[in-house]
């Protein structure tokens, strides 16, 4: 896709988004003053969107350059999908176990090497990193992180070493 095509689509999307949001401001209840500020922002956004459309009109602008594909999009989408699944299931699995699983699955899915030593390294780093997070957040900071039962382990560790 050419640069100006992307900018044209972006401009149209931003203009449409601003219009929808401007319509939404009609339903704000309360003091009239609370409408001014979001509306001012939306108007700026809309003007910028229209400007993008005008300046990237195919009739005026014939840029032959292409967006460089300097990114491996497959890997990107894979990691976004894996991250999404990790974030969604983390609360149910517990953050620490979820981290370990994410590390192993994510690490194996994104590494190009099939060597045993590399895979073992991913596994070891996963365990060490999960333990580091457990120590930092659960034991030291006592942060209320969903941990799926590991509070009991942290209590034992705290009783053994910190008291």
């Amino acid at each position, binding site marked *: 896709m050419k640069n100006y095509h992307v900018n044209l689509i972006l401009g149209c999307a931003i203009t449409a988004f601003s219009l929808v949001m401007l319509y939404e401001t009609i339903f704000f209840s309360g003091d009239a003053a609370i409408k001014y500020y979001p509306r001012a922002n939306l108007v700026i956004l809309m003007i910028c969107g229209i400007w993008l459309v005008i300046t990237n009109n195919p009739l005026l602008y014939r840029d032959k350059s292409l967006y460089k594909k300097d990114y491996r999009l497959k890997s990107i989408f894979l990691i976004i999908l894996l991250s999404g699944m990790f974030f969604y299931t983390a609360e149910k699995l517990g953050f620490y176990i979820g981290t370990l699983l994410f590390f192993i699955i994510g690490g194996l899915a994104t590494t190009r090497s099939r060597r045993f030593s590399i895979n073992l390294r991913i596994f070891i780093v996963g365990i060490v990193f999960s333990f580091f*997070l457990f120590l930092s957040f659960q034991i030291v900071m006592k942060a209320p992180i969903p941990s799926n039962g590991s509070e009991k382990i942290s209590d034992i560790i705290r009783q053994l070493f910190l008291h």
Partner: protein
Amino acid sequence: MCRIYETICIALHNASDPFVFLIVIVGMSIGIIFGALPGLTSVMGLILVLPFTLDMEMYEGLILLGSVYAGATYGGSVSAILIRTPGAPANIATMFDGYPMAQKGESRQALTISVICSAVGGMFGVFTLIFLAPQLAKLALKFGPAEVFWVMIFSMTVIVSLASGNIIKGLIAGAFGLLLGTVGLGHEAVIQPRFTFGTSYFVRGIDVVCALIGYFAFSQGIALFGRTLETELPIEKIKRGLFWQMLKTVFTKYKWNTLRSAVIGTIIGIIPGAGGNVASMISYNEARRFSGKAEAFGKGEWGGVIASETANNATEGGALVPLLTLGIPGSPTAAVFLGGLIVHGVWPGPVLFSHHLDSVYTLFIGLILTQIAMLLLGHFGARYFALALKIPRNLLGLMIIVLCLFGAYSVSNSMEGILIMFCTGILGFFGERLGIPPAPVVIGLILSKRTEAAFIQSLLIGEARGSLLHYFLSSTICIILIGMTILSLSYVIYAELKSAKGK
């Protein structure tokens, strides 16, 4: 006067806590690693340590952030010198002469000069902060809602300057950030959540820190998986010694270069929107101009590394002046510092100096300690920090993503925070591919609520007094701020037009 002495005593007592020393060393090490690794940024380093500050005192948290930032700025020079890949834009000028020095077998000299000048520049910036910040804070005490509103408007010009190269897309990013700040229940005049479309999501608004994590860390974590270029990174062998010799050289032969670069760096740091990269480039050019041997620059001239490293570290202290006194986050890094204050329920400005003066002075002392730690760690540990360049990118990416999850949850204490982080991260990643920079979005989001609050307050006071226009333009401070806003905008437009003509 008595109060100041008492405060300094408390600050010295706080800073002498061994935990503060530990924070400085850990923060500095993390910073150097983040700075040295191309693809990781100082902002990302700051964001990822931010959740760890929740359990700390405010000054401890800020010292941790300060040491990570200082470490990252220096760390960027390690990769610039050793592998010709600057860790951050602020280290580009270091690369011009640092890498040729390494090629000539002077990598140790280059790294030693870099760490000495980083510490000197950093120290200069911190002392400027110490002397300037309290004075500016006194002035800020005179600010009413109208003045605060104009300060916020002036801060927004930062958004435009951060988007140099494509003002329209920068404005889109800024306006989008400001709009994000209006989501949910913001100002007390808002009785019904805005832009939530009847759902229970985001009723409390978009959490600034979660959005910071998403935009600056999660999006960059994802990006690490997409790089097609995976090069084998060569590490030059570093020789021991030379520290005192280099120190003497910096303070004798290159004393004017060092001083000039420190002054340039600090002044540019104070100006919102400019940053370490601008400071180092200007200092580099000035050093070349004044050296009398311009042709030697770019071929391993020590003066080039001295100018660049002194200036980019001097910006750190300078950038904290408008942030701590007026609440202007002049750079993405300053925005994260602001996040560090927000998680402790404090907004910078006069209140910070009147209610938390001991914390502010402890921060100042901590920042001085940071520069000393940088000198020691940078000198003795450069060889070991350079090993970080060998960490596989995918493992690094996974660690960052996991830290984002923990960070967002710790800050917001809810899965909604994670949702915000995830969405803003994806928006940030794809936005950047489309040329929409993330920094203006985040700065817009940070400034939004305060701007709207000041606007509504000014509106109500102005209406009560019978003249809105008169209230907004009544004081001298307002007029000065309006003038500064116009000047700042005009300069950005002028620079943009000039660069467009050049193309």
